[in-house]
């Protein structure tokens, strides 16, 4: 760069150009530093509002779910129970529910029968301890029920905020959508820290203590199945379901993603998901895909089955079907 004549090195050095440090400049500098530090402190002041014990050293040092020993897990569950008691006034029983041998869960939903009552969406909230501001707030429910125009399966013209006097409406049909527990799950593929993965029984789970909250999985999901805790979950004491599991319905910390796990706290103990139990029309069928005698296997073999967004190539374990 020195070929440019105007950039020939200047004869004066920087020390000659600028004044040396004197007592006066030193004091000025000291005063300026004080102002700077004061400014920094003022800027960080909101951090004082952090609740005690919200982020402990144990939390920071905790390992990934799949690297924890049973003893470590036990300690963590204890800690989580303590935390919940402190924060919400209820002591839950949090278990580490493990997948069952020889089971791959599948879910089928009968579009002919669904009447769009949204009882499943509400039951989901009750079971899974999602954040809600009042009884009508189903934003964090893992199930979105779409009101569809008859004559096509077109999501573009669907409506989740439908609110008629009664359902079903004559010219509409209804399509509940929740996590499809995909075999080729884009959400687990994109997670930069493997905080979400597929379990041996096919369930896609999140380690809420490992998730960094980047929300890349939400961008990747074609079914809009994931929810993010933009705030610390709000849930009243009486509404809390104390039967909880580490990978599913324990109350999430703020800043992490959560999702439907087919109620693994129930299904891994041999029960049905909450959304199935509450369904008044029997539109929902849940079971083991590996068992040829199961009802779900029968449906996949004999009914007219429809896969939502099959073209995206996610190979879902959630199926829609129609009655003959």
């Amino acid at each position: 760069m020195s070929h440019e004549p105007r950039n020939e090195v200047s004869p004066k050095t920087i020390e000659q150009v600028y004044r040396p440090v004197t007592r006066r400049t030193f004091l000025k500098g000291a005063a300026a530093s004080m102002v700077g530090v004061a400014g920094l402190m003022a800027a960080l002041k909101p951090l004082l509002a952090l609740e005690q014990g919200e982020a402990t050293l144990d939390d920071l040092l905790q390992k990934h779910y799949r690297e924890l020993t049973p003893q470590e897990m036990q300690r963590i569950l204890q800690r989580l129970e303590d935390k919940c008691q402190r924060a919400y006034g209820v002591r839950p029983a949090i278990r580490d529910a493990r997948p069952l041998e020889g089971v791959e869960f599948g879910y089928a939903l009968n579009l002919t029968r669904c009447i769009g009552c949204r009882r499943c969406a509400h039951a989901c909230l009750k079971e899974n301890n999602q954040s809600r501001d009042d009884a009508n707030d189903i934003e964090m429910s893992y199930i979105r029920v779409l009101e569809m125009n008859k004559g096509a399966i077109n999501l573009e013209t669907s409506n989740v905020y439908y609110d008629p006097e009664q359902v079903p409406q004559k010219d509409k049909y209804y399509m509940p959508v929740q996590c499809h527990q995909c075999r080729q799950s884009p959400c687990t593929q994109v997670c930069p820290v493997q905080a979400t993965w597929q379990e041996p029984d096919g369930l896609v789970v999140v380690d809420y203590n490992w998730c960094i909250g980047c929300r890349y999985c939400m961008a990747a999901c074609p079914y809009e199945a994931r929810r993010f805790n933009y705030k610390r979950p709000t849930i009243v004491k009486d509404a809390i379901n104390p039967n909880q599991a580490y990978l599913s319905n324990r109350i999430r910390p703020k800043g992490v993603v959560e999702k439907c796990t087919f109620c693994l706290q129930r299904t891994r103990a041999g029960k049905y998901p909450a959304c199935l139990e509450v369904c008044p029309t029997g539109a929902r069928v849940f079971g083991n895909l590996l068992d040829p005698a199961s009802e779900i296997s029968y449906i996949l073999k004999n009914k007219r089955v429809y896969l939502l967004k099959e073209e995206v190539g996610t190979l879902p374990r959630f199926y829609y079907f129609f009655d003959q």
Partner: protein
Amino acid sequence: MRDYLTFLLRVWRVSFQGSWKFYAWMTGLSVLSLIGLNAWARQFVEGLQTTGMTNQVSWGAYIANFTFLVGVAAAAVLLVIPAYIYKKEFMHEVVLFGELMAIAVIVMCLLFVTVDLGHPDRFHHMIPPIGIFNFPGSILSWDVIVLNGYLLLNLHIAGYLLYCRYHQRKPTKTFYIPFVFLSIAWAVSIHTVTAFLYVGLAGRSYWHHPLVPSRFLASAFVAGPALMILTFQIIRRVTRYYIGDQPIFTLRMIMTVAMIINMFLLGCELFTEFYSPTEHAAAAHYLYFGLHGHRGLVPWIWTAIALDFIGLTLLITPLSRRIVWLNLACVACFIGIWTEKGMGLIIPGFVPSPLGQVVEYLPTLNETLVCLGIWAFGTLLYSWMLHVAIPIMNGSLRARPQLSPTEPETAPARF
């Protein structure tokens, strides 16, 4: 080693010496950065509810700014290629400023990603030995590698060359030339990988489009040079370092070609979306004309398109041979591309949502303050680097001031 510490000490001292204008500028930027830090602290305590993001639009202004800035950082390559491959002498006057800009901008990118995290305190989960790095599965993990790699490359190149210059000795080629060539490929990779973040998502048809990476590069090679042209003029006006017109007009030429390609690709995209309007065109429809009565982005995108056209018109006509018009073109292109590539690319990816719902997004005040803070901090960082680098480059900050600067012990260093 001792030498190096003295160097750092002198750099430290130079950092705090300047005219009152320099002090006013740096103080102003510091205040803005602190306002941003304050807003972020509030967000850290209350969670991302302080932003306008929702379950439906789960990325917003932070990721939009991030995407745009990765392009600006990659554009440093446009100074490196003419300087090192085509051996244009005059580009060596400015190539270092491009590398320093890349450093500042990459730092801004990393900050924008960090403020977007729900759990920044778990950042270490991404660092391999402590955390679990989903590599090569996650494109985000690729992005972490390429961005940090690019930062290190530029820190090394710029740092090494400045240190040699300080000692008035010729840089050893093997210490930096291989890195310079690596940085060329690397610059392209940072923006391509960032494009792949979006392109890889088959569930979002607005992003799942092979044109996106090419358009990313084309628009980056407009926005980057636009910013450089403007800052080079500021440098030659306010510092004791002369930059001729040649680098500026070389950048103008590059920018013109890139802008033509960018607009051509935009045309291709619009044709595909609108000629046979499939369901996949819903996002583009929302962006350009509104969807089901929601028109939140319409004024933004048409402003951006108008600015792009003004910029393009000025660039391809002889008008922009005059510096005033060129500057106008740069401002128009920079703002136009920031708008269309930031908000115009990220938000329609989420609107309509995969289930067909239209939920609009608008950044909140707190979110805007965080963005402003990061822009101010990046500017602060770049200003500081220039303030230290320029005395080294024009020779007034050198290892042995007692030696006559016009007779260095070896031939003058040339970057």
